[in-house]
């Protein structure tokens, strides 16, 4: 802010217009790179179509300004709205596809520039000869037009960087970073991934469109081939990658560096060599500077610790009545019937053991209940509410959490941020400060507090398993699925984990405990349900069920039955 205020004085010092124009370009690139980064850097969905959205802004202003005679400032809201709408339409189609996400998005946005360019070129929007914008009325902000452009670009760059900063710090930003690392897990933890991606895309496009609206008038004559150039995407990605995509200021820093570099080349006689050199720098940055110049500063600082406002122990409400009722749930994968009519009931306050041989459908059942897979048939009722058609993040909000058998932490978020994520997206939406306070409690509960500032890669398997538990607990679920939390642990770690599971129940959660370690199942569970070939074959008290000949047969083969 202070920097911006100082820079705002510049046009009144009577410097030659060259400096103002050069700085204008620098700010303009900073806006493009930073706006690109809000979607692509934070969430990992790399857009190659920023030129399309920038160009949509240019031509919106061109049409309104030169054909309808509007002044520049009046055209700008539309220069933001049109590309934003374009992004929303495009995103609503692409973001639904679940396979190949990032790759598909990259390739489709690569094509978008060309498509938008074709439309502009073949309609009266441009029609071929280009559009003159020199008659568009400018606001008078500074003594000279170049000073006015300078101030507008400075203001827009300040606002854009501030937005990038605000998003970076916010709950929204946390969601985007989680999408970057593991979108499926983010969704299961309550992040509305589809909406977040759309919102980030729309915001990114709107800011690029604003830069475009101003730029069209700045250059005063626009043509399709110059505005919709693949170089824009290349420069923007280069700037953001060079500066650092995980830092709010990274793209702006990269923009400054690359703008100076580009100026050096365009001013010299080696324009073609300059292009080749840019390509080479691009490759080197991707290969050797993955975090960018600001990479080492990109880790978000934890907020000052505040006391948690949520009581540690949720009040026990009732007990024994059905919490989750699963009826006749079926799920097939390309002919393999993973679930063939599972029926089970989880009662409030209990620890239910879910056992069965490998491939019996336990993990698939968790994936269906948590919404990751949609059931082919059957019903899943949680607290009287049908869940089988709900999105995973809504199921998470209803109060269901899970752990993963093979831990899936968000690899670029610290342990603390990992655990603070579910409370931000749970049933009571918390801001980051309160969520982190909540996270500290569960880190202490699981003995991970000393590792709070580490990245998950610094943890060993047993700590990662506990991180899974801490994350699931921090969501304050009513029902929690523990998927083989004991597998791979040593006997003493196992004892610790068993104590932890008991403590979880004391916190007021109902537990479905999926496990192969029979000692733990017998020790911990109130009831046991046995699955084989996607069907429930037995349910009841653990010791009775384990004596059931059908169950013994399922585990050891028919001869023992």
């Amino acid at each position, binding site marked *: 802010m202070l920097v911006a205020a100082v820079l705002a004085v510049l046009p009144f010092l009577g410097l030659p217009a060259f400096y103002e124009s050069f700085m204008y370009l620098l700010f303009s690139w900073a806006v493009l790179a930073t706006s690109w980064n809000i979607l692509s850097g934070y969430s990992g969905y790399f857009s190659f179509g920023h030129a399309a959205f920038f160009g949509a802004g240019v031509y919106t202003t061109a049409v309104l300004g030169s054909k309808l005679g509007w002044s520049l400032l009046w055209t700008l809201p539309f220069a933001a709205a049109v590309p934003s709408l374009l992004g929303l339409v495009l995103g609503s189609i692409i973001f*639904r596809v679940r396979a190949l996400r990032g790759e598909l998005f990259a*390739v*489709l946005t690569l*094509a978008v520039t060309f498509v938008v360019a074709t439309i502009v070129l073949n309609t009266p929007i441009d029609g071929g000869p280009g559009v003159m914008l020199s008659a568009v009325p400018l606001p008078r902000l500074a003594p000279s037009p170049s000073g006015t452009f300078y101030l507008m670009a400075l203001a827009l760059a300040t606002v854009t960087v501030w937005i990038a900063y605000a998003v970076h710090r916010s709950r929204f930003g946390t969601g985007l970073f989680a999408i970057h690392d593991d979108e499926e897990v983010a969704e299961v933890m309550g992040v509305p991934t589809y909406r977040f991606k759309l919102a980030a895309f729309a915001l990114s496009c709107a800011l690029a469109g604003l830069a475009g609206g101003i730029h069209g008038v700045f250059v005063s004559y626009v043509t399709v081939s110059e505005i919709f150039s693949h170089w824009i995407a290349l420069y923007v990605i280069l700037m953001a990658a060079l500066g650092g995509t995980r830092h709010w200021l990274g793209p702006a820093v990269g923009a400054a560096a690359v703008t100076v570099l580009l100026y050096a080349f365009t001013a010299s006689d080696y324009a073609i*060599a300059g*292009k080749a050199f840019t*390509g080479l720098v691009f490759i080197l940055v991707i290969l050797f500077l993955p975090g960018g110049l600001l990479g080492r500063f990109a880790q978000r600082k934890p907020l000052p610790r505040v006391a948690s406002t949520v009581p540690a122990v949720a009040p026990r409400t009732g007990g024994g009545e059905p919490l989750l009722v699963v009826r006749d749930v079926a799920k097939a994968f390309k002919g393999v019937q993973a679930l063939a009519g599972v029926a089970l009931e989880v009662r409030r306050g209990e620890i239910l053991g879910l056992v069965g041989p490998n491939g019996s459908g336990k993990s698939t059942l968790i994936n269906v209940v948590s919404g990751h897979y949609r059931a082919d048939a059957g019903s899943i009722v949680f607290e009287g509410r049908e869940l089988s058609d709900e999105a995973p993040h809504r199921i998470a909000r209803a109060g269901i959490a899970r752990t993963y058998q093979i831990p899936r932490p968000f690899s670029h978020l610290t342990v603390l941020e990992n655990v603070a994520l579910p409370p931000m997206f749970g049933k009571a939406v918390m801001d980051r400060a309160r969520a982190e306070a909540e996270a500290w409690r569960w880190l202490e509960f699981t003995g991970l507090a000393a590792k709070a500032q580490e990245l998950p890669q610094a943890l060993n398997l047993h700590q990662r398993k506990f991180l899974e538990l801490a994350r699931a607990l921090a969501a304050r679920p009513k029902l929690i699925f523990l998927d083989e939390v004991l597998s791979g642990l040593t006997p003493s770690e196992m004892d610790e984990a068993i104590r932890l599971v008991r403590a979880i129940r004391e916190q007021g959660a109902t537990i479905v405990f999926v496990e192969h370690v029979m000692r733990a199942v017998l020790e911990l569970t109130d009831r046991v349900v046995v699955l084989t070939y996607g069907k429930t074959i037995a349910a009841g008290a653990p010791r009775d069920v384990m004596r059931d000949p059908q169950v013994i047969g399922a585990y050891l083969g028919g001869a023992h039955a």
Partner: protein
Amino acid sequence: MPSAALLGQSLLAGIFAGALYGLLGLGLTLAWGMLRQINLAHFALVFLGAYLTYQLSAAGFDPLVTLAIIAPAFFVLGIALHALLARFKVNPLNTLLITFGFTVMLESLIQWIWSADYRRLDSHYAGVKWKIGQLFVTLPELLTLGIACALALATWALLRYTDLGRALRATAEDAPMAAAFGVNHKLLALLLSGACASFAAVAGTCLALSYTLAPSQMYAWIGVVFAVVMIGGLGNPLGPLVAGLVIGVSEALTMALTAPAWAPLVSFSLLIAALLLRPEKF
């Protein structure tokens, strides 16, 4: 409504254009589907191949004979590219970024050697044409169609029926598992990448036979060829050819019925339609 002859001629043009889309898409789909590399530089290689064909033909070689030189040279380039990407364990998205860098470097190289002006290959093939009923067929078009079909079918048969093909498919499915069964997956990946680059050389020669060349033109092909690759199904050698023919014909009909300028929107619309109607196929 255009006349039947005109419509027939544009259908034919669509088939030939589609064959070239398929030919360009073949190397891309194999690299993306089987090596997890989105090789944007494929387009630059195609253009480099086209320019080399142009240059060597001007020096007196028959355009098809030039392939005997260009294709092996490109095979080496493809191996070098894969060696680099494998050395740094580049993830699929970053392969797109890095090959974007190579694309602009190759574009600059082409512009430096051959300038940004349009170039046109004059070969004795260009004038050869036949009249079938009311329709004209030229030799370069027929060659492109024949080569595209032959290469796609040969690749398909190789992948499906030979041990080499089975090993390649196993590697694409699960490289460490294939390695555990004794498949030298690193060597196979290098060979496949080399083959993809050679396919780019072939596509380049076909391009030079029928089209006027300019360095910036390479970007005009990206949208439609990626659409062909995605609609055809990643890693499926017959996919780009089939999808290419569908898109080529649709474009030709669009051009005949509306205006030629709208053709670039056809592939994108078809791709969006495919995403909307069959999202689970992607």
